């Protein structure tokens, strides 16, 4: 992992700075589709919906729906 502060408009982040959204994009998104026994019924849209609601609650407060 490299971090650069060149005059370029491309920005690089260190692993500890990785945004939770980016991580969940990969861990819950379509990227990894191995599904285990317990989460089969949670896999797919439902899980992603839960994720977005959970995240939005911290961003905008619980009263707002997606």
């Amino acid at each position: 992992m490299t971090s650069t502060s060149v005059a370029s408009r491309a920005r690089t982040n260190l692993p500890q700075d990785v945004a939770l959204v980016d991580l969940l994009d990969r861990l819950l998104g379509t990227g990894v589709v191995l599904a285990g026994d317990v989460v089969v019924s949670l896999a797919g849209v439902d899980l992603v919906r839960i994720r977005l609601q959970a995240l939005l609650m911290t961003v905008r407060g619980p009263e707002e729906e997606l």
Partner: protein
Amino acid sequence: MPDRTGRYLYAIGRGIDEEGIARTPGLRAARLCVVEHRGLAAVVSDVDLDEFGEDGLRRNLEDLQWLEEVARTHDAVVRAATAVGPTAPLRLATVCFDDDQVRSRMDQWHDPLVRALDRVDGRVEFSVKAYAAQPEPAGQAATARSGPATGSGAGAAYLQRRREETLRREQAGQDAARDAEALYTVLAEHAVAGRRLQPQDPRLTRHEGTMVLNAAYLVDADEPFTDTVEQAVDRWPGLQVEVNGPWPPYSFATLEEQ
């Protein structure tokens, strides 16, 4: 009394041994174990099914702090495994009841797993996100073009400005989409594979601009991909670009749906 312990699967790889990942703690500080089967190695640890069983997951996945802790631990374990051998990460919260079930999964996924591991061996993932640069403040350009209100009245001039503003925004959006597509294609020439993920909701990115590209690239580990991106972005002044990595190959270890 039923056993309330399950096996959480982080990743399946090749050539991964317990010694190689011993310094990384699993969830709730559990010791990481490796289940070997047919030339593959699954990285697992014990979890409490009250927390990670179906009911527990339903409850806990709505708890952002819980989700973040589990996601970051999962990621740390996957990164540790990636440092030892080619690794296919699993989706968050993949839980089996025991090692027999882990092995049966490894049987079920064996051939696609081997193909996935061949694909990612010696390679890493980079994330490239592009945002449309913020348009100039509304009104200025439109006012300059339409000039002062004429005999048709201030109302008509206002509507005219609104129309021009809308057109200008649509044009800017189209330009950004076209630039993002060009950037994606140029970078793909330096990668083994590329994928476009869904652009992230602006309410989640906390970024002012609209995300027009959320791409993942699989690149050879010795490819100076960050440099490549930094050189490429100068061609598209309308885009703000973020490059992030290396990641474990989350977006490229996908198994075909069974």
